[in-house]
């Protein structure tokens, strides 16, 4: 019986094979499926659009200022504050299409806004004053106090000081120590009395080391008293 009792090696091999197949089959069915999608690029398109818009920005000068100015001065000031701006907008759009149903769309929008002012206006009062001194701003060539001559062109038109900034009161105070009171108080413009000018308003800008050309010197402690007499 040894023959019959002995296991047939082919049989055993077949069983082992069967078991292995079953295990593998089960494993195959049970294992999670990793789905990967490979997409093929079909087309890539990039579109860039640039548009330039010109617009005119107008600022209105407050009526408190214009009401005190002559028409000519008002026109001049309006021209000063009217300026043209150029706005450039660039849009870049990249579109990528793939074969699969999954579509990846990337849109990048870049906008660059550049503002260029046609007539650059100096930024500070000092720069403005220097530009006047260099003759870069047209203030006329006639030295004089009459309207239309350099003095009022500079202060009223270019610096935009309102008339009342300087022509403050109809009369000097009684104790205002000023010899020309007798003429200054008769100053008239178009028949109406023009305010007198307290020269104190000039100090700030016309003091040495200020913005405009110096007429007045710093007083307190900034120079040597040469004579024994000091006030």
């Amino acid at each position: 019986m040894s023959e019959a009792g002995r296991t047939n090696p082919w049989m055993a091999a077949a069983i082992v094979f069967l078991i292995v197949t079953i295990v593998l089959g089960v494993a195959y069915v049970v294992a999670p499926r990793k789905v990967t999608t490979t997409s093929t690029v079909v087309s890539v398109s990039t579109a860039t659009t640039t548009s330039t818009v010109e617009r005119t920005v107008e600022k209105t000068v407050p009526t408190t200022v214009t009401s005190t100015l002559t028409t000519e001065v008002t026109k001049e000031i309006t021209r000063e504050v009217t300026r043209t701006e150029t706005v450039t907008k660039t849009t870049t759009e990249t579109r990528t299409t793939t074969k699969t149903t999954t579509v990846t769309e990337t849109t990048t929008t870049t906008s660059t806004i550049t503002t260029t002012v046609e007539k650059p206006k100096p930024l500070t009062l000092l720069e403005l004053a220097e530009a006047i001194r260099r003759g870069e701003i047209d203030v006329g060539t006639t030295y004089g106090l009459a309207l239309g001559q350099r003095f009022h062109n500079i202060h009223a038109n270019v610096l935009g000081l309102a008339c009342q900034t300087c022509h403050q009161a109809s009369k000097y105070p009684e104790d205002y120590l000023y010899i020309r009171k007798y003429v200054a108080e008769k100053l008239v413009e178009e028949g109406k009395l023009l305010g007198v000018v307290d020269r104190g308003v000039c100090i700030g800008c016309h003091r040495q080391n200020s913005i405009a050309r110096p007429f007045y010197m710093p007083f307190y402690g900034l120079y040597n008293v040469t004579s024994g007499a000091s006030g």
Partner: protein
Amino acid sequence: MAKFGLLIDLTRCIGCRTCEAACKMENFVPPGKYWLYVLEWEIGNFPEVRTVYVPMNCMHCENPSCMMACPVDAIKKNEYGVVLVDYEKCIGCKYCVAACPYGAIDIYEEKTWYEDYKTPYEEIPAEKKHPLHRYQPGKAFKCTLCFHRWEDAVKRGEKPGTTPETTPACVLVCPTGARLFGDLDDPNDLINIRIAEKRAVQLKKEFGTRPQVYYVTTK
């Protein structure tokens, strides 16, 4: 170096305006214009009321703002500290008028005292006058500290203000001795002694013009 100036004692001034009149006569100042003007106003409450008189003329500043403002260099400060206008160079732009904080400078206009005739005084021809009195219409003119009166003396080395002839007209005529003329550079000059003693002050120091006219304001 000399530096002539004035000391005006407001506690002595009685507001008679003789200085004003003398200045006009001496310097042919036309009607309606003044080189020297006496300001006056009232202070206090009844019954303690009084009038303040402040005679003012060109301060002959050490830092003359009129000179700084002049675009043609027509205003100069001479070696005696006197600020003078050059009528030939002046273009009549009035910048000096605008810049002077004391209102000391004005524009000359030809005007006679009477409409129909000129007084013999007004008939004096320009060539007979001192160059400082040969004004031109439309151009600046102002107090000269009567430089024409003491110019020769000072050039000869004499001390101006020691004789009537070399003293400014306004100082000479003051009935109360409220005006004093002298050399601010000379420590021994009476003007400096009085300035120190009376604590005299300059007007409108904030402009930094350093006037050579001092005022006594308190007793």
